[in-house]
């Protein structure tokens, strides 16, 4: 017969509320990202680069630039952030923090959602701000900028979240990698197509609500469904 358990060991000793746990994870990821001064501006620099490279590449006749640059610039940037997704969970899986998430007694879904939010704040949000600027720099009319902003913002939300599923899947996977990165496309290609269209329409001054609504639908789908799927995938890949 063993000694009775003292307070600290009794079940249901004060547990951290789910929301606070998620906030802690979010805070952690942001802190990791901004560990060093200057990383804050990095997405912006990246954008500046893409924006300067493109005019360099094509014969810089302003007329053509206006037509093509904005779309390409942010499509490329969104894709860059999408590729960043593949490494969303890699590091955590490697150093064992993901395991600790899984046995923390907190809902893994919530914690992963927090990670996705962090990812969006770090990649999507800057894009949403820079997107309009670059479009403008490449000659899009002022009136188009709100449209560009909205489409990039909503589109990047959808990408960050839907992309997290693929990220979780590619965690465990070594052999059937091709299949999976292809599986990843169905999520992302529609986002990119609608996003590009919305931007284009905004620049041309046409009504772009339809495209943005489609993006919004995908974003909502992502927020509600993706973390669940990601959590399931992560648990499997940890085994």
């Amino acid at each position, binding site marked *: 017969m063993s000694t009775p358990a003292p307070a600290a060991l009794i079940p249901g000793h004060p547990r951290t509320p789910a929301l606070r746990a998620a906030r802690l994870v979010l805070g952690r990821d942001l802190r990791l990202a901004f560990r060093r001064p200057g990383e804050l501006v990095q997405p912006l620099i990246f954008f500046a680069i893409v924006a300067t490279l493109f005019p*360099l590449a094509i014969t810089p006749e302003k007329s053509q630039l206006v037509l093509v640059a904005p779309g390409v610039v942010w499509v490329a940037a969104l894709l860059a952030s999408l590729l960043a997704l593949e490494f969303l969970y890699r590091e955590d899986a490697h150093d064992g923090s993901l395991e600790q998430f899984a046995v923390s007694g907190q809902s893994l879904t919530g914690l992963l959602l927090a990670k996705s939010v962090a990812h969006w704040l770090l990649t999507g949000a800057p894009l949403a701000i820079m997107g309009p600027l670059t479009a403008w720099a490449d000659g899009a009319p002022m009136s188009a900028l709100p449209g560009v902003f909205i489409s990039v913002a909503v589109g990047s939300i959808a990408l960050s979240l839907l992309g997290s599923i693929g990220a979780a899947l590619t965690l465990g996977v070594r052999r059937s990698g091709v299949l999976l990165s292809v599986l990843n496309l169905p999520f992302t290609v529609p986002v990119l197509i609608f996003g590009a269209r919305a931007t284009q329409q905004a620049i041309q001054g046409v009504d772009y609500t339809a495209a943005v609504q489609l993006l919004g639908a995908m974003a909502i789908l992502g927020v509600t469904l993706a973390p669940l799927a990601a959590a399931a995938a992560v648990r499997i890949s940890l085994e």
Partner: protein
Amino acid sequence: MAWTWFHKLGSPPYVYKLAATLTPWFAWIAAALMAYGLIGGLVISPADYQQGEGYRILYVHAPTAWMSLQVYVVMAVASAVALIWRIKVAHAVAAACGTMGATFTACALATGSLWGGPMWGTYWEWDPRIIFELVLLVQFLGYMGLRAAVDDTQRADRICAVLAVVGVINVPIIHYSVEWWNSLHQTASVMKLGSKPTMPLSMLMPLLSMFFGYVFLFGALLLTRLRAELLSRERSASWIRDVVRA
């Protein structure tokens, strides 16, 4: 023996004191030269027969532009010395160059494009020299970014030294870009080796004195920043305490 001065320059305390004494001299010489240059350039010398008054921006543009290259060379040489002979002070010098180089380059770009407005009818053109000057700016920024990103000073020093040395290749490219590509930009009219400059003396003198004014200004700034760098790097060393007490 001949190498003692070299070793002296390797010792932080010596360099710190040296810098302290030299700084005012550099500052005053810079002030004098630049004063003459500005007056001579903006007031005395005649308006250009084809460019009118607009050309006077030359007295700011050309020197800053030259300096942007000089500063990078200084940075690269200091880095190389530091890597080869393991001299901490040289690392400090290189570190001090980064921000100033960026500033000079930015000024060259700004004044240049300002001048481009009236001269070429456009403020910005994807002209080789302009592109590579822009690249130079990015190089300086990258250098500073890398420094900020590596937290251990000693490692940051040596990593950045490698970067600086490798990047020096862009300097000749900028300098000769005007010959290699038929470009909008002026070909060298002062810096031509051999043949005598294609520029009236009344314009040349102020221009040169502006240039050397900038050189000394850079020197003064460099020495000041160098002292700050040394203070922060050697904070644990004993000689610092003496300095602070004094």
